[in-house]
């Protein structure tokens, strides 16, 4: 401590940290080799990476075959046979939809992106117009998908692949949220009959796997209807998925309602608002905001659960993949097909979870500004 320069009080400059505290080496030391246990973990991880990553990469990319008519194209290749994906691309995405009509599905996809914009990004330009569009979108999408009115009709049995997964997922999401909110309000209601019915519904649904409801939808729903009335298979699946998801949604929303202080309810009452007015303008906007992450988690769960509709014979993305696996031209390529389907699901679900994280972050920031 001899040749250290001294400064008058209050004049000491900001110095850079000593060289052994910053830079790549310091980072490595602090994050990877801070002690023996840590160093051991690092070496084990590196070993794992070396064992797994190079063979995986060569299977995935370097030794893989990307095009071909059938599985003979991949004979002798050491890697993945992605030819099955390129050859069956249309089936993965459009199912058995007539191939000259797939432009309609593309319009539906693009329309979906436009329709969700005003809800995902409230600052987006032309918001008013987009909101009107998204309200009209379900009818437009149904018309494009099913046909009629000068479009060639396509029966729902031909809908399939990723298109069908999206149809079920998006309908389920759009329908289960309002239903879940109603159920949550019902459960919290001071009217015993209402709250009892809601509790019974919510708890029954949450205690039983979705597959049971799909079985119910395929085996029992038509028995419940007057003779002669039959619901389409897809409609039955939609009802099952929506009702199932709404019970979970209700529990998330209930969490939000409980997080709101009683002062808010009292203030709303003091202003002379009716029950529905105070819910709509005061309580729900706050409650839903606090539970956005939970809601999005339910969306993700619902989107993943759409894969279960295969049990009643619908050909969603996963069931389509399963059908391709059993195709004589492409036998034995199940891993490639499932990995590809997995990637598609992953992109959708991961984007949703990242979006929710981003939204949570920006809401937190807003709350801090307000405080």
């Amino acid at each position, binding site marked *: 401590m001899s040749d250290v320069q001294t400064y008058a009080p209050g004049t000491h400059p900001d110095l850079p940290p000593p060289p052994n505290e910053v830079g790549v080496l310091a980072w490595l030391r602090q994050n990877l080799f801070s002690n023996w246990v840590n160093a051991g973990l690092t070496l084990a991880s590196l070993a794992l990476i070396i064992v797994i990553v190079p063979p995986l990469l060569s299977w995935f990319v370097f030794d893989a075959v990307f095009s071909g008519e059938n599985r003979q194209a991949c004979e002798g290749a050491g890697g993945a046979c992605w030819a099955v994906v390129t050859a069956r691309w249309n089936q993965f995405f459009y199912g058995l939809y007539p191939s000259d009509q797939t432009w309609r599905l593309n319009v539906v996809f693009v329309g979906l992106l436009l329709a969700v914009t005003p809800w995902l990004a409230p600052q987006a330009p032309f918001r008013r117009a987009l909101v009107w569009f998204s309200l009209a979108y379900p009818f437009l999408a149904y018309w494009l998908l099913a046909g009629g009115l000068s479009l060639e009709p396509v029966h729902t049995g031909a809908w399939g692949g990723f298109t069908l997964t999206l149809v079920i997922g998006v309908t389920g999401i759009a329908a289960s949220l309002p239903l879940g909110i109603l159920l949550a309000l019902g459960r919290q209601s001071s009217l015993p*009959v209402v709250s009892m019915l809601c509790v019974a519904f919510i708890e*029954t649904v949450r205690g039983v796997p979705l*597959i*049971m409801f799909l079985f119910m939808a395929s085996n029992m729903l038509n028995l419940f209807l007057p003779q002669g009335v039959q619901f389409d298979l897809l409609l039955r699946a939609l009802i099952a998925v929506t009702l199932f998801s709404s019970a979970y949604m209700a529990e998330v929303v209930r969490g939000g309602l409980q997080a709101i202080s009683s002062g808010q309810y009292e203030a709303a009452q003091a202003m002379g608002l009716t029950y529905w007015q105070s819910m709509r303008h005061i309580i729900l906007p706050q409650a839903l905001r606090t539970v956005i992450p939970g809601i999005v988690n339910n969306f993700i769960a619902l989107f993943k659960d759409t894969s279960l509709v*295969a049990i009643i014979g619908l050909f969603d993305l996963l069931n389509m*993949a399963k059908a391709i696996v059993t195709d004589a031209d492409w036998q034995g390529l199940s*891993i490639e097909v499932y990995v590809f389907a997995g990637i598609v699901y992953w992109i959708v679900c991961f984007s949703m979870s990242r979006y929710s994280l981003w939204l949570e972050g920006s809401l937190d920031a807003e709350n801090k500004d307000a405080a």
Partner: protein
Amino acid sequence: MSGAPSTITAKEASGLAARLRDPRVRGAVFQALVALGFVALVLFIANNTAANLAALGVSTGFDFLNQPAGFDISFSLISFEPTDTHMRVFTVGMINTLFVAALGIPAAMVLGLAMGILRLSPNWLVKRLVGIYIEIVRNVPLLLQIFFWQAVIWTLPPVRDSIALGNAVFLNKRALYLPKPAFEDGAGLVLLVAIVAIGLAFLAARWRRGRRAETGRAPYPWLVPALLMGLPLVAILAMGVPWTWEIPEAGRFNFSGGLQVPDTLVALWLGLVVYTAAFIAEIVRAGIQSVSKGQREAALASGLTQGQTMNLIILPQAVRVIVPPTTSQFLNLTKNSSLAVFIGYPDIVAVFAGTSLNQTGQAIEIIALSMLFYLVVSLSISLLMNWYNRATALVER
């Protein structure tokens, strides 16, 4: 009524209209309407169902449960013959569902706990790797993962080229074969000694706690592990190792003997464990992070070691946060085991709500019974959970 609330005419202020504005009356009327609507809906459905069933010529009732099933079940822990009844199918299905849950829950817990703790490791690389695992697994449908595991199992060699581990464990695309213990005389005694050892270990732990309270030091730290492991070991040796291993033997087309775990169970189990563990890992991470940094600092500042801080301060608080959502993950695992139906593992949905339903056509009865089974399982776990929450709630003002 909601049109113009500002001006109230004399007519409206009296009579029915005024009474309807009383919230209590309104509530009662609304409830009566809801109840009426619900009853109407139930009657409507019951009526339609009866008419539809009559038209189809299906008789209702649970008599079918006593009829022979007429089909075989590929895997069962209790004996099953095609001549057994549908009731027996129901039982086998329930046992198989509970069996895969019982195998899956501890494994998912262990893997999830390990991953959750590694996720909080100061090691950047480990944290990232665990993060990648969690983000991949949570964002892909479980069913697809089960298919994937089954596809992986199918890339294993066929029966005659089975992978052998020490000539006792065999693995091929059809099943996993494990040695099966065949117990001889004296095994019961070993079991008895093991149970006694657990009891003694409890007593010893209590005695050590008492000593620590009295003297400040807990003597003989080796006592509890020694009792737990040593006593049974001594008993085993004293009885001359009272069991033999029945080793699976390669036959012409298949293995015989040993314990056969079908590929479907392996794929289902792997899928359930890997998937559920990712969710548990996030719960564990969030639970540990929920304990504020100040708790750790206060513990360290008062002289506790890192290990004591973890055991006495962080974990007791984290566990309260971790246990309830983890239990609901266990419940999810049990419900998700119903995906067995897709790959042919004979759980309750596959054999009862699937095969039995197709054979008998008794959709309403069979689906009601299966749902009842799941409801009983979830309700019992919820009750246990509520009891736990009450017992461990932090005392607040």
